């Protein structure tokens, strides 16, 4: 009995180790395969073990000149692959440890084998690392000591020892015992792969926030030597240029979101007026055609804009035919009233679609209200104003609060496609600014800082909007 308790405690350590082993496979900083400077800095064990092309992308010359033997790199590739397979096997053992005694005992098998395979992979990389030291051209190849190899060896050995110890601690399997796992763990294990995907793509990026504290240029690694603390946070506000940029960008963002908020009643009006049309066929037609623009991308909206407003587009050729213009004008290059134009395109794209939710709400209004109002002598507009509008206000408020929460996130697609060298001052919104700063400009830390601010403020706004909704309507919006 006591032995089983010890085994249960050891299992906790064992499972944590299994998870840790899987995580380090994906972190480039812990890559023991970097036995030479030619191995890409941003590669992890996972990339090295799954793509030989990525691993050896800089080795073409080294192979041709005979500085490095192909066998060496194949050993690295094989070693990484062994580590991946090994750690996946130990993870499978970890999963089996959630079952009954027999399943636990069985689970020791993949754990031991997996740890052994991973260990073999470590040895292969170690061999390759020693082999590459003897390169005839150490200046170019720059052999590195894979310091992280000891970490992998430690993890593998620990897993190996733990699984053997646990195996011995567990009681013997009785004959009538069956492999079984409690339902709650079965369901969890079915869910686990998807949870892992969610973690990898939604939570793992949070690790990237650390770049805000380093003096990082793309392609380099983070070391303590380029740790700069809160430098970039101060820089953003103290540096004249970035401060001016930020003010400009925030003004654009808030102006365009503000215009969007100020006109958000339009889709409600659209729905109310559309429902005043009694010819159902016409109404259906309008609804179908006005919702189409919502389903085309911003690039296509730009293509439409291009077809209508460019130098040889529809408007130009009409005006030329009418004799108003001599030569075609590219209206898209005109940078006046950019905010209004962006709003107009947004409306063109979204108005019909946003109205659908209101149309549904209108059809849900009790018809007796209208009849009662008619009997009391209310006219058409009185009914609209006094019955329809108040019934739609709750829906309107929810959507408005959501829009307020998203005031900083107007997306970048629209502004990216409509941006020209002439209008960049009035069109760059926060999302686009981050993109241009970080991806195009390569100023990763600064862009990360701006992004962090945006994320935090957005979440604060969302909770604020939710709080307001709770106090006013007694319902949360998230």
């Amino acid at each position, binding site marked *: 009995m006591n032995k089983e308790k010890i085994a249960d405690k050891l299992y906790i350590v064992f499972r944590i180790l299994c998870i840790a082993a899987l995580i380090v496979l994906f972190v480039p900083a812990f890559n023991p395969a970097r036995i030479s400077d030619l191995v890409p800095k941003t590669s*992890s064990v996972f990339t090295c073990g799954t793509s030989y092309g990525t691993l050896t992308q800089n080795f073409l010359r080294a192979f041709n000149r005979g500085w490095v033997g192909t066998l060496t790199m194949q050993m690295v590739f094989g070693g990484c692959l062994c580590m991946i397979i090994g750690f996946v096997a130990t993870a499978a053992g970890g999963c089996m440890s959630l079952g009954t005694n027999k399943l636990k005992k069985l689970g020791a098998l993949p754990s031991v084998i997996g740890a052994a395979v991973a260990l073999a992979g470590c040895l292969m990389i170690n061999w390759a690392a020693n082999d590459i030291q003897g390169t005839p051209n150490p200046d170019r190849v720059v052999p590195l000591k894979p310091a992280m190899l000891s970490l992998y060896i430690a993890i593998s050995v620990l897993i190996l020892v733990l699984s053997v110890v646990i195996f011995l601690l567990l009681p013997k399997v009785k004959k009538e015992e069956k492999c079984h796992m409690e339902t709650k*763990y079965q*369901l969890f294990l079915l869910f686990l792969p998807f949870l892992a995907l969610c973690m990898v793509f939604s939570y793992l990026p949070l690790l990237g926030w650390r770049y805000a504290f380093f003096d990082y240029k793309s392609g380099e690694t983070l070391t303590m030597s380029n740790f700069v603390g809160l430098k970039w946070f101060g820089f953003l506000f103290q540096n004249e240029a970035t401060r001016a940029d930020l003010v400009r960008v925030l003004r654009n963002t808030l102006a365009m979101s503000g215009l969007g908020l100020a006109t958000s009643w339009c889709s409600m009006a659209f729905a109310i007026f559309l429902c*005043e049309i009694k010819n159902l066929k016409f109404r259906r037609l309008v609804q179908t055609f006005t919702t189409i623009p919502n389903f085309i*991308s911003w690039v296509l909206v730009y293509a439409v804009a291009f077809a209508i407003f460019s130098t*040889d587009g*529809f408007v130009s050729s009409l005006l030329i035919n009418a004799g108003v213009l001599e030569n075609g004008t590219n209206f898209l290059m005109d940078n006046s009233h950019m905010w209004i134009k962006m709003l107009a395109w947004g409306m063109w794209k979204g108005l019909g679609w946003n109205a659908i939710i209101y149309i549904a709400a209108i059809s849900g209004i009790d018809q007796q209200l209208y009849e009662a109002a008619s009997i009391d002598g209310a006219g058409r507009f009185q009914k609209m104003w006094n019955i329809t509008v108040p019934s739609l206000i709750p829906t309107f408020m929810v959507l408005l609060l959501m829009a307020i929460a998203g005031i900083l996130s107007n997306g970048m697609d629209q502004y990216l496609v409509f941006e020209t060298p002439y209008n960049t001052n009035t069109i760059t919104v926060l999302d686009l600014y981050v993109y241009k700063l970080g991806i195009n400009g390569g100023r990763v830390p600064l862009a990360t800082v701006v992004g962090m601010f945006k*994320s935090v403020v957005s979440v604060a706004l969302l909770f604020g909007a939710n709080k307001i909704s709770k106090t006013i309507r007694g319902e949360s919006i998230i």
Partner: protein
Amino acid sequence: MAMTKQEKLDQKAEKLYEKKHKQKYRRTPSDWTFDILNHAFFLIFTIMCIFPFYYIFINTISNNDLVRKGAINFLPQGIHLKNYVAMFNVNDVGTALLVTVGRTVLGTVLMVIASAFVGYLVTKQEMWGRKIWYRCLVITMYFNAGLIPWYLNMSMLGLTNNFWAYIIPGVVAPYNIILVKTYIESIPGELEESAKIDGASYMTIFRKLIWPLSKPILATIAIFGAVGNWNSFTDSLILMPDAPALHTLQHKLYTYLNAASNLKSVMNSGAGTISGAAATNVLNAKTIKYTISMVTVLPILMVYPFMQRYFEKGIMLGAVKG
């Protein structure tokens, strides 16, 4: 089918109601003006929404010389389909089309299966730590690390210049999972209970019971997923800088709309294929741009009218929260 019946009944009731209404109701002059203005507004707005597509379309099928002169405004002239033929002969448009179709089909199928399965799993109260894991999923809808950390993460995972970058991150879609979960919760629990008593496992219940029963919602999320995949542009722009062969159609369109240098190479290769057929009817910058636009937008225009029902259902479901 039950829905359509219900809809028909609704429409009938509405018509009856209107007939009754009309008899009582006399239009005043102000009503007349309002009605006329109202109809006019919606007519104009509808035309504004649909005319650009028509305009682009007639310009792609009309005589290219007339198009270049800007003579095609309302009606097509000298109809031909050579532009489309030439477009598919241009290598990179064909590849882009292939990539886009591939990601749309594969991404949507995987997303729908995963959403259905996860949506089913999170309805199971007995799952270990269900509440925590479900919240972990839902929070990601409202909070993200930002563009740059996302990009660095993708490149760390080796998902730059890699086709799988289009597929894998989209498999787990929290919003769709919530929709499916809400839908499955509305299915009577007795069905599952009786299947369980008959000895069905969770997988069997999912395959034989939950999957067929939740088809309406799955169709809705599939359509939204497919449109989203077809339209996505930024992931191609950011993640595939060194792999032009993996650019999506939207990205290609963006490139063609902006760059003149690309156009020249296309004109050369495109002109080579059609010049023999019609020397006077050569592709020009304008027709190339319009033709790619049309190739990109046509699938949506063709699918939309048939699927409108599902789209509208989708937005109504959006009002339901997890």
